[in-house]
């Protein structure tokens, strides 16, 4: 008989994060492709990258989760135009504040995570040739979950 377990990554981190993103960036689709696939003019791609133990006790664990949120924007003219950079920065600043406002996230009093943060943003991420048609930025979302 299989053991009982909670899908912490999905239930506490990924699904709540997607739901949070949908409430703020209402018209921006979120995709999960392992290999890059183009999806219109503006979309986000979630790339799970980390699940590390922070502390272990006899009864529970504290784990740190990391998801890379990659922004893809098809922009008029060159991707490195000043307007394009400034618009992209407004999106990343908005994402930072969204996560900052929900740093300790317990929707309807159901604990999901604490210390949620965008720990780094890269405006010059390593991208494939196919991705170069888009303006890209990587925002690393991290949070801590008491399992």
């Amino acid at each position: 008989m299989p053991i009982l377990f909670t899908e912490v990554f999905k239930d506490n981190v990924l699904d709540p994060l997607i739901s949070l993103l949908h409430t703020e960036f209402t018209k921006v689709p979120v995709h999960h492709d392992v290999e890059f696939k183009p999806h219109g003019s503006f979309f986000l791609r979630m790339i799970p990258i980390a699940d590390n133990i922070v502390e272990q006790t006899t009864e529970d664990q504290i784990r740190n989760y990391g998801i890379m949120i990659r922004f893809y924007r098809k922009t008029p003219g060159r991707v490195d135009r000043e307007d394009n950079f400034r618009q992209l920065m407004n999106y990343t600043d908005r994402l930072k504040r969204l996560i900052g406002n929900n740093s300790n996230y317990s929707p309807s009093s159901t604990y999901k995570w604490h210390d949620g943060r965008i720990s780094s943003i890269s405006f010059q991420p390593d991208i494939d040739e196919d991705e170069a048609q888009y303006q890209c930025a990587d925002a690393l979302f991290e949070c801590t979950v008491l399992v």
Partner: protein
Amino acid sequence: MITFNRTYNQNVLDNLSLIIQQEFENIPIRFDSTFRGNAFFQFIPQSDELIELRTDGAIREYGLQIKYYEKNYGLYTKRRNLDNRVKVIERLKELIRINTASIVDILFFQTSDGKNLFTNDGDQFTIFRRPLLVTSDDAFFITSDSLALAPKPEEIEYDWHNTRLESVVYEQDEENQKYLVGSVDFRCVVEEVYA
């Protein structure tokens, strides 16, 4: 939509552009790598890293590469092709050093009826450090026509701190070898408080 601060644009890019444009009036600032003209700066936004997470805000470090391009004419010589680039980069380093804690827009003295103070030879009186203007008995500094004199704007807004240029590289541009480059790594820290 939530309300948020446009920190990268307003605290970092706008202020950096402002002080560079004030200092280097004839050198345009670009974000793209369109090669045009004899000299230009290119801003390449790089990073935004969390230093400290707080309950009501965050301290973050912003990174930006500033490239100074200069057209490469004729045979490369130190005097013609290096000295001016070094001069511009050193001037840029000093500009960032004196603005390490915040941007101080040029301040003007104004009388209480909104008139600017001019010197005897008709130059407008400007200041670079905010002074404390009181007489020895702590009274206001008053002009000869009995108007109080005060620096404007009244408050300096916080923009950034710990601003520095971390490293400098002098090279020839790989994409367009007609240009020589002086490249610097700009960093600043911004403390953001969520209202």
